[in-house]
């Protein structure tokens, strides 16, 4: 069973589906100009509210598909994973993290998916931003790993 689910997660069909999904995702980001930090900053400075339609249009599609998928009670053909919704637990980190992300987004006009898309159009300065994201992701992982080690019991394996 483990072997089968692993092959399902790594097989050619699985990767092909992920690639097609990624291509559509990136095509949509570029079509809506989200790969341009200037356009995102125009939105945040309330000069062009088009971004609302990007997020709204995308969320409308996922709302429909996730709802129908969850109601069907069925599982994905390539993995056997049950269709469900994206429900994360609420805690202080959701708000703290959202606030830190908001400051970074407002300062730079970049978010992860849009930055990856921007690489595809040859926007090399965006690598400053992606490099920064890796540094930030590493820093929070370092602090959280250190905290867990300090607060865990000595008998931990």
């Amino acid at each position, binding site marked *: 069973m483990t072997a089968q689910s692993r092959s399902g997660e790594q097989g050619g069909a699985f990767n092909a589906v992920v690639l097609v999904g990624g291509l559509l995702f990136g095509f949509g980001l570029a079509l809506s100009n989200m790969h341009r930090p200037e356009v995102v900053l125009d939105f945040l400075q309330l000069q062009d509210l088009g971004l609302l339609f990007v997020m709204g249009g995308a969320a409308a599609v996922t709302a429909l598909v996730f709802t129908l998928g969850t109601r069907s009670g069925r599982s994905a053909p390539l993995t056997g994973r049950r269709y469900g*919704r994206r429900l994360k637990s609420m805690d202080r980190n959701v708000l703290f993290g959202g606030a830190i992300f908001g400051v970074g987004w407002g300062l730079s006009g970049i978010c992860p998916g849009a930055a990856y898309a921007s690489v595809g159009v040859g926007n090399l300065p965006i690598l400053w931003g992606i490099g920064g994201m890796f540094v930030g*992701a590493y820093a929070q992982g370092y602090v959280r790993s250190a905290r867990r*080690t300090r607060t865990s019991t000595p008998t931990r394996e």
Partner: protein
Amino acid sequence: MTAGVVGFALAAGALDSLFPNGVLAYALGGVCIGLGVSVIYLGTGHIVGASTFLESTLSYVSRLERFQASRFLATRDWRLVFTFGIAGGAAIYAFTIGDGVWTTQVQPWRLALGGILVGIGTRLGKGCTSGHGVCGVGSLSTTSFANVATFLLLAIGVANLVQALGVSP
């Protein structure tokens, strides 16, 4: 009658100033993004977000406990494929119907410093504009609504503050 016409003209003028580039390309792009998420969802059952890639990719080079979690190890290979696809999809658009190579004028220090905060905030907050903004909102998750409201308010405040301080672009 005249008042109605004037009212309509005013409303149209307000729409023009709120949406100087229209809404069609934005909405169509959004639908494409939603379809990309949906293809992966229907085929694999995974609900993808873009920022998990940061930590799952760090698991290749860092032995920190945080990154060696099974949810990163088990998904890091296909998250590379997903990210490659995002860049590829944008390239396909840019070099067919789009404007080809494009380079931002936003200053590198803004990109780098903003990027660091985006990296911390999205991983601490369990998601980004795609994970919470598109997939979480599409799941009608109250956690995601709270996260999105928080980052939108802060981002609008900071972007206007930076502009008011005369930083451009």
